[in-house]
C-alpha cells in the first residue's frame, strides 16, 4: 500500500487531477510553516547568535561589539578547559558503554524473550515512564541510597562487608556516572528495541535451523540488524552527557567539572562571549561525533 503511494508521490502525477492523499506541495509548505518558524527563531538564530557572540569582546559589565578571537585563544590555552573537556568525554564514553550493554540486553529481552505484544509493550512502558518525570528529582533520589549514612553503606556495614562507610558513593565520579546511566538508559533501549522489533523472525529461525547457537545468532544476525538503533541511541546518550550540568552539579557535590558546568559558571559571571566560545567548541565536538556515527548508520531508514 505505502509503496504504491510513495512511487506516486515521487513522480508528478500529470494525468491524475484528483488531489492525492498527503496533500499538495503548497499545502505541505503551509503545514510545515509553524514548525519552520519555531525552529528558525528558537534554534537556528540562537545558534548563529552563539557563534557571533563567541567572537565578541566583553568587559565586566557587557558584551562589546568588536570582533576578536581572544575567547577561543583563552579557551584552548587554558589547561583547565582541556581537562574539563577530557573528563566530560570520559563520562560520555563510560556512560555510553554501560547504557549500550544495558540497552542491548534489555531490548533483546523485550523483543525476543518476552512473548506476547501486550507484555512487550507493558514492560517497555515500565522502562520509559520515568522519562516523563523530573530528571532533577530522579537525581536527588539517589542521595538517601548513596550518602555516608545511606542505604548502601548501612547494609554493607550491617553485614560486616566493610568497616568504614564508603565515601566514594556520593559526590564523586561514580555517582555522576550512576546518575547518567539511570537517566539515559531509556534513550538506548527505545531505538534498539524499535530496531529489534523490525527484525524478521524467520531470519532467526533460519539461523537456528542452520545450526547457529545463541551467541552466533546474536553476533551475526541480531547485532547487525540492530545497528541503526544502536547508532541512534549512541547519538542520544553522547549528546545528553556531553551537554549535561544538572547531574554533574548534584551528584558531583560542587567539586566536579563538566563542560556544561564550565559554561554555566561563565554565564553566571556574565562572561557570555567566553561561555559562547566554549559552547561553540562543545557544539563542534558533538557534531563531529554525530557525523561519525551517521557515517556508520542511516537514521532515516528507521523512520
Amino acid at each position: 500500500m505505502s509503496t504504491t503511494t510513495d512511487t506516486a508521490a515521487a513522480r508528478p502525477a500529470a494525468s491524475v487531477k484528483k488531489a492525492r492523499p498527503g496533500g499538495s506541495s503548497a499545502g505541505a509548505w503551509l503545514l510545515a510553516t509553524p514548525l519552520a518558524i519555531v525552529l528558525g527563531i528558537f534554534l537556528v538564530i540562537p545558534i548563529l547568535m552563539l557563534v557571533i557572540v563567541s567572537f565578541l569582546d566583553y568587559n565586566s559589565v557587557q558584551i562589546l561589539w568588536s570582533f576578536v578571537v581572544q575567547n577561543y585563544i583563552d579557551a584552548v590555552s587554558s589547561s583547565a578547559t582541556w581537562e574539563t573537556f577530557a573528563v566530560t568525554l570520559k563520562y560520555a564514553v563510560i556512560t555510553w558503554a554501560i547504557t549500550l550493554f544495558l540497552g542491548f540486553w534489555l531490548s533483546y529481552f523485550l523483543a525476543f524473550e518476552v512473548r506476547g505484544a501486550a507484555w512487550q509493550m507493558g514492560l517497555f512502558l515500565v522502562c520509559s515512564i520515568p522519562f516523563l518525570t523530573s530528571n532533577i528529582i530522579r537525581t536527588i533520589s539517589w542521595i538517601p541510597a548513596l550518602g555516608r549514612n545511606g542505604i548502601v553503606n548501612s547494609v554493607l556495614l550491617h553485614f560486616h562487608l566493610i568497616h568504614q562507610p564508603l565515601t566514594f558513593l556520593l559526590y564523586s565520579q561514580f555517582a555522576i556516572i550512576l546518575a547518567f546511566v539511570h537517566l539515559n538508559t531509556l534513550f538506548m533501549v527505545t531505538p534498539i528495541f524499535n530496531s529489534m522489533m523490525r527484525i524478521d523472525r524467520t531470519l532467526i529461525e533460519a539461523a537456528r535451523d542452520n545450526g547457529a547457537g545463541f551467541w552466533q545468532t546474536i553476533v551475526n544476525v541480531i547485532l547487525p540488524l540492530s545497528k541503526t538503533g544502536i547508532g541512534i541511541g549512541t547519538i542520544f546518550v553522547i549528546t545528553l552527557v556531553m551537554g549535561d550540568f544538572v547531574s554533574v552539579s548534584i551528584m558531583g557535590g560542587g567539586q566536579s567539572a563538566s563542560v556544561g558546568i564550565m559554561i554555566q559558571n561563565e554565564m553566571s559571571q556574565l562572561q557570555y562571549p567566553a561561555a559562547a566560545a566554549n559552547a561553540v567548541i562543545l557544539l563542534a565536538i558533538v557534531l563531529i561525533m554525530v557525523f561519525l556515527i551517521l557515517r556508520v548508520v542511516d537514521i532515516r531508514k528507521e523512520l
Partner: protein
Amino acid sequence: MNRDRHGKSFYILAALFAAFVLFLYGPIATIVILSFQGPNGGLTFPMRGFSFHWFHALFQQQMVGDFGGAITRSLILAFMVMVANVVISVAGGMAFRRRFAGSTFLFYLVIASLIVPSILVSLGIGLLFSQLGIDPAWYSSAFGAQLTWTIPFGLLIMFAVFNRFNKSWEEAARDLGAGPWRSFTNVILPIILPGVVGIALFGFSLSYDEYPRTMMTAGDSNTLPLEIFAMTANVTTPVIYALGTLTTAFSALIIIVAMTSMAIIRRRRAAKLG
C-alpha cells in the same frame, strides 16, 4: 519454536530486567518514603517517626521561595507548550508525508533540535533576547526554548503514526467529496487520535519538568524545576523530598490520565469496527 518453555537466557535476562526496574524505581520509592519523615528526621534513613510535617512545611514557610507562583507558571507554561506542540507536530507530521522543497533540510533541523545540547539552546536564546533588548520571560523565550525540545518528540510520534496509517481511508473520504479540512477532522484525526494524546502528554510532561533549556530563558520569574534545582544547593531537610514526591505524583497522574484516555479511544474504536 517451542512457545511454552523458556531457555536459560530468558531467566538470566529476566533477572537483569528486574534489577534494572529496581534501579529505575528504587530511588524514587525511597524519597517518597522519606518525605513522610518525622519533624526531627534527616535526609537519610532511619525514619524518625511518620508525619506530614514536610508537606506542611512546603506550603507554610517560605522554604522554597515563590513556590506557589512557580508551580502556577509551570502549569500554565506546560499547558501552552502542550497545545502548541500538538498543533505544530500534527501539522508538521502531515506535511512530512510528502516531499516538498526543503523537507530534507527541515527534517535535519528537527533532529538537530533534539541533539544540540540543551545548555547551548538556552544560552543562545538568552543571548538573542538580551542583544535585541527584549526581557526573557517564561511565556516567551522559555516557551520557545521548551518547544525546541518537545517538537522533535511530537514529530517522531507522528512519523510512527503515519507509518501505520492506511491511506485508503483518506482516499475514500476524498472520493466521497470531502475537502481537505473535512477529511482531516472526520477521517484522519479520529484515526491518529491516540498518537495526538501521546504528543500532548510528551509536550506537557517534558515542559513541566524541563530545566536546562529554561535556565537561561525564564527571566526573573522561576518555573518549578528552576526552584527545585535552586533548592538542591541549599535545602538540607526532607522538605525537598516532599516536593519531589508531590511533583512526581502529579507527573504520574498526568501519565495515567493520558494512557487511560488512549486506551478508551482504542477500545471505543474496536467496539465500533467490531
